């Protein structure tokens, strides 16, 4: 069973690296906004994996807060910054 958890952790880590690369590369701000939303969802997944491995429910309130913050962040960027969005030069 430990092999499954190691594989899951590696997959989530590589996925987080990919979305970090999109945050770095993304030519416009909206690209970075959705990549950030996805990064926070991957953080939820990673913390959930930790709480599944250790059978603890102590980390679950963090996931609720992260979900709400991720949504608020990307919606705020889309509403207020997306209109003045220019490509990186």
């Amino acid at each position, binding site marked *: 069973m430990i092999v499954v958890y190691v594989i899951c952790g590696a997959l989530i880590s590589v996925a987080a690296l990919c979305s970090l690369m999109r945050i770095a590369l993304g030519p416009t701000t909206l690209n970075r906004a959705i990549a950030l939303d996805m990064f926070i969802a991957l953080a939820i997944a990673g913390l959930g994996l930790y709480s599944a491995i250790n059978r603890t429910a102590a980390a679950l309130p963090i996931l609720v807060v992260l979900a709400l913050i991720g*949504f608020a962040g990307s919606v705020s960027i889309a509403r207020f910054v997306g209109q003045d969005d220019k490509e990186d030069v």
Partner: protein
Amino acid sequence: MTAREILDILSAACLLSGCALAFAAAVGILRFPDLLTRVHAAAKPQTLGLMLILTGIGLRMESIGATTMLFVIAAVQLVTAPIAAHMVSRTAVEFNPIREDLLISDQLHDREAPPPP
């Protein structure tokens, strides 16, 4: 094979498939050519992978309070992910340059996409 072991195996299967979907979403957000396609990758497989991971967690937990909180997390994520994707896409179509050559039809402006060059 006790019930706990069976649930552990089911939870491992759910966790593995959820992480595989999250990885697929990450590959998509890195490799897709345009913002609108990347919004697809960030919204759909990512959310389904997260739902599967939350299912895997719920099968490992042995308390009702933890399962209720997992329902809350799943409900919040399912409601907010389409809203965020929709707002980002609408802002992108109205105010930013998007690649018209990748479109097939443009139902928002009620026209067919311009023909490819």
